[in-house]
């Protein structure tokens, strides 16, 4: 088992014919994801390799969507996917205005649709489906669920895990923006429900207090072992560290606060990324 997607999930790619969309459509299909069509308004009727291109999402029989359109078109594209009840809708696009993100997420909530992102690398259920831009070759099937605010840092840690024979049920990038759809808590909830997930890795970073809230949630509701890493211990206040959401404001959002909160509920936090596999082994 896995969360959100598996080998049966029929996936439509919105913004399929752009540089990024094209590259990743093929890559996802190659990995085995069931890509049933691409959508680029005005380009319907073409074929992109063996992927048919449509003008509208409505023309495609799909269950889930992944979106690569430029940020100014994200709101419209996401509302199109939500209107058809596709879920999850994975918003890869970065630089989405926060008002658009809030609008999409609120509407998705009303329609009971899961939004991943925006500004996310997406997710992978190894051996089943890739619905994102993560490098699939470093992943491996196994019992660990991973959720992260970061992309490459995730790959770094996944790589260490895979080398240590700690495969993954699903790995999900929740996205680096301040306002995102699936967050630590809603993703933790899914991993808790997933029978095959035996332990969870949660990769956080500075900014906001999502990790602190996740710690409270873990204490209350998560029975499976959780291991964490928090990036940004040396980040100065008031500066955006790459991700729009990674900024310490005043006293909130520091790595110290997050590490403290997680340790307080029994979640070990690795000092350096490569220590994660050992912490996992200690708990399994």
């Amino acid at each position, binding site marked *: 088992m896995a969360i959100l997607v598996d080998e049966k999930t029929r996936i439509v790619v919105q913004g399929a014919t752009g540089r990024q969309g094209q590259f990743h459509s093929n890559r996802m299909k190659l990995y085995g994801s069931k890509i049933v069509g691409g959508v680029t308004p005005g380009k319907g009727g073409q074929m992109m390799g063996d992927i048919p291109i449509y003008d509208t999402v409505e023309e495609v029989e799909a269950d889930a969507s992944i979106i690569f359109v430029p940020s*100014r078109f994200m709101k419209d594209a996401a509302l199109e996917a939500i209107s058809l009840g596709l879920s999850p809708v994975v918003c890869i696009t970065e*630089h*989405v*205005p*926060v*008002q658009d*993100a*809030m*609008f999409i*997420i*609120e*509407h998705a909530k009303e329609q009971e649709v899961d939004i991943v992102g925006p500004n996310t690398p997406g997710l992978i259920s190894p051996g089943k489906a890739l619905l994102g*831009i993560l*490098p699939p070759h*470093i992943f491996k099937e196994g019992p660990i669920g991973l959720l992260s*605010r*970061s*992309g*490459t*840092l*995730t*790959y*770094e840690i996944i*790589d260490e895990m895979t080398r240590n024979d700690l495969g993954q049920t699903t790995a999900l990038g929740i996205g*680096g923006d*301040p*306002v*995102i759809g699936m*967050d630590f808590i809603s993703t933790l909830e899914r991993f808790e429900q997933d029978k095959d997930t035996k332990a969870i890795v949660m*990769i956080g*970073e*500075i900014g*906001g*207090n*999502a990790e602190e*809230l996740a710690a409270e949630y873990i204490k209350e509701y998560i029975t499976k072992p959780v291991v964490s*890493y928090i*990036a*940004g*211990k*040396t*980040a*100065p206040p008031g*500066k*955006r*560290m*790459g*991700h*729009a*959401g*990674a900024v310490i*404001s*005043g*006293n*909130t959002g520091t*790595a110290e606060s997050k590490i403290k909160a997680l340790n307080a509920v029994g979640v070990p936090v690795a*000092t*350096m*990324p*490569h220590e994660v596999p050992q912490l996992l082994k200690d708990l399994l």
Partner: protein
Amino acid sequence: MKLMEYEAKDIFVQYDIPTSTGYMVENVENLKAVLYKLGLPVILKAQVLVGGRGKAGGIKFAKTEDEAMEMANKILNMEIKGLPVKKLLVCTPSEIQKELYVGFVIDRNKKKMTLLASTEGGVDIEQVAATSPEKIQRVLIDPIIGIQEFQCRNVASKMGYKGKEMLSLATIIYKLGQIMQDKDAELIEINPLAITPNGFEALDAKLVIDDNSLFRQTEFKEDFKDSQEYTPIEIKAMEAGLAYVELDGDVGIIGCGAGLVMASLDVVNHYGGKPANFLDIGGGASAENMKKALEIINLKKGVKSIFINIFGGITKCDEIARGILEFDPSVPVYVRMMGTNEKEARKILNEKGYELYQSMQEAAKAAVKGV
């Protein structure tokens, strides 16, 4: 992007939010005309994008023309937290009876815009939030429906106002919410919102526009690069499409992906080094991106070694390797590379004598040692 006080107040005026009458001046010569219009006394306020300008001597009260000229001259030649003061806002002082706080922020966890209001204005609102959270009202705004007038009346009423005062305060809050929505703001604040014998008056103004919205908030686009918010090197990096933050250490750091670069800083720090910067070339970067990253680090004084940390997922290591060869910095470079096309990269860099590491911590250690 943060707007200066005078820019935010210009927008307030467009929305009929009462503010103290004032004019922006960039030099002492213009001040005379302004004094003629405003009369005396005046308050001179340094326009900088950092807090604490009052304590730093950036806000002065002048009773006579000579005093005003002298103070303006002083403030316009000063630096506040490293930022040179280039503009002054000259205002008629208001008779303050009480100071309130009203503002809107984005609540990341609730995923909604939130109205904040407090009768404890004029002080740091985060301080109030920490010590007396009950003194702050918080109202979540539905992102689809938007701010509603009744929500503002509820808040104004709970702040203890009645009659016309309640209605004026509610209107100010409503207009502020409309600016937040119309201008794609991340933050808008009036602190303090003063009560004066003439009614409510916005004495200060804070407005931060969502950078991601500049494609549609075109009125702010040209301000972007004038902004004091970033250092010259940061602006150069921005123009090159790279995420760069200046720090005060001596180990230059370049990586792909914000999380990995943050972790790189942390690892360098763990081994006793001091990061000179944060520089994210992003996922799937080209040789050109890498070259530009090195150029930017090279602009920064005091960098003694450079740590390049690449995890090749979408990013191709050989591409990055070629970029590294295109610029020759004057300090030693320690490269950690792993993943896609790692072998080719290794070959390219070994030929030119670069040290290559597979492990992030080993590379970090070496870079710290190399200082």
